[in-house]
């Protein structure tokens, strides 16, 4: 009976889930005739804020902020949400290493809504103050910085940081007692590994490169996956069918966008059981992930509208919704 400390928060989240976009809301958005009408639709649905300009990026950024403001308002243990920001943290690390090593300043490539924003990350890397980073980032930061300085190989730097991110997520999942965090970690690492294998198979990368990139996960045998990837996309697809990722195998055969859509849909499927869980922190984490998925889907639709893609092409890219 000790699982009732999130009862208030979960009930509040249930009420908020009514405002999440369903498949029909997304269909309405796709049916808008242009980008401007899409923005109008979003503002009518309450997206953005009173002082948010009528601009896609501004509206989506505000929505992301609103999600975290809501979670903070619930006064729950925020440590449980840390794992969700690992990818942003490691992205910032990658961006800072590249900016310091190449002296190229790129505006707006950092995520500011995570533990270490652009200024602090740039300071840490420029002063090589790795101790200021969380423990799970220190080694990767040092290695990525030194590798990029020595080899000038940006892809290798990415591989080091991305693998460290996956390993950190996997470790957080294993050490967590919360079921959804375990499932989130497993799905994130498995999806990333499948993506890497798929891309490596397409670009003919070596076994050694894959060994450097793939992170261990419970549902995939990395040796078999790597062997399959060296043989081509069809072999990866065959291996995934045997490993219980039948849908991924089919999406891979269909198209690149179908495969990318499967990757996001898999995460939504991972969190779906939380819709029926009245206790624990699970529904709160699921809500954050659902909001991220929703914002990502809206971003895809807006970008497609800006680039004049047909409604059918947009539908092919639209992700499954949580509600």
């Amino acid at each position, binding site marked *: 009976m000790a699982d009732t400390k999130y009862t208030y928060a979960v009930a509040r989240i249930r009420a908020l889930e009514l405002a999440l976009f369903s498949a029909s809301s997304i269909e309405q958005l796709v049916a808008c005739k242009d980008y401007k009408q899409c923005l109008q639709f979003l503002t009518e649905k309450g997206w953005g804020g009173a002082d948010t300009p009528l601009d896609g990026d501004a509206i989506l950024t505000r929505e992301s902020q609103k999600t975290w403001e809501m979670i903070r308002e619930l006064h729950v243990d925020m440590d449980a949400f840390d794992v969700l920001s690992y990818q942003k943290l490691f992205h910032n690390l990658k961006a800072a290493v590249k900016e310091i090593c190449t002296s190229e300043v790129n505006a707006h490539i950092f995520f500011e809504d995570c533990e270490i924003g652009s200024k602090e990350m740039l300071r840490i890397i420029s002063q090589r103050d790795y101790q200021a980073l969380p423990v799970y980032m220190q080694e990767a930061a040092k290695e990525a910085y030194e590798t990029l300085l020595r080899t000038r190989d940006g892809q290798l730097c990415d591989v080091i940081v991305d693998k460290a991110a996956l390993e950190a997520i996997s470790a957080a999942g294993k050490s967590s007692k919360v079921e959804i965090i375990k499932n989130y970690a497993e799905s994130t690492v498995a999806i990333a590994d499948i993506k890497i294998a798929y891309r490596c198979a397409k670009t003919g990368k070596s076994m050694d490169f894959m060994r450097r990139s793939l992170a261990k996960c419970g549902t995939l045998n990395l040796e078999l996956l790597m062997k399959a990837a060296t043989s081509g996309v069809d072999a990866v697809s065959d291996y995934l069918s045997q490993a219980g990722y039948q849908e991924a195998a089919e999406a891979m055969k269909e198209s690149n966008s179908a495969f990318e859509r499967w990757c996001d849909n898999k995460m939504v499927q991972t969190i779906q059981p939380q819709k029926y869980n*009245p206790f624990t922190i699970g529904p709160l984490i699921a809500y954050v992930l659902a909001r991220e998925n929703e914002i990502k889907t809206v971003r895809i639709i807006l970008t497609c509208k800006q680039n004049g893609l047909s409604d059918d092409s947009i539908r092919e890219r639209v992700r499954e919704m949580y509600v």
Partner: protein
Amino acid sequence: MSGIVWALLGAALAAILAGCGSAYGVGVAGQAASGVVTEDPSKFGKVLIMQLLPGTQGIYGLLIAFIALSKIGLMGGGGAAEVSMASGLSIFAACLPIAIVGLISAMHQGRTSVAAIGIIAKKPDQFGKAMLFPAMVETYAILALLISFLAINAIPLTM
């Protein structure tokens, strides 16, 4: 220990355990109800009913405690009756069904109410169906109440 002490202990347990169960149930359902009302105050009436459902076990416990006290003459101002040890123990045993079932059923009913409040949060038109789930738990509290009530009434004060 004389019989009256056992009878009194039974009455106290009926009130305490069933009351504690209801306090937990109403409390946890109240947290969920507050969460929903924070976002949508129009659902106040519906979630309030859900919150009250686990409160009945406390009332049943109180009722059995009253009957037991009345039986041994501690209510009504007539003074305590002579209660044999066997009768006291029998009254104690008769109070146990509502005490134990009241505690457990109220806790579970509270948790079921929380889940039902989740239904109301998302589908308020399904209020009737949502209310049935916690109401089912009530059955067992009523059965326990019935047994406690019949047993206490059937026990003579001297055996």
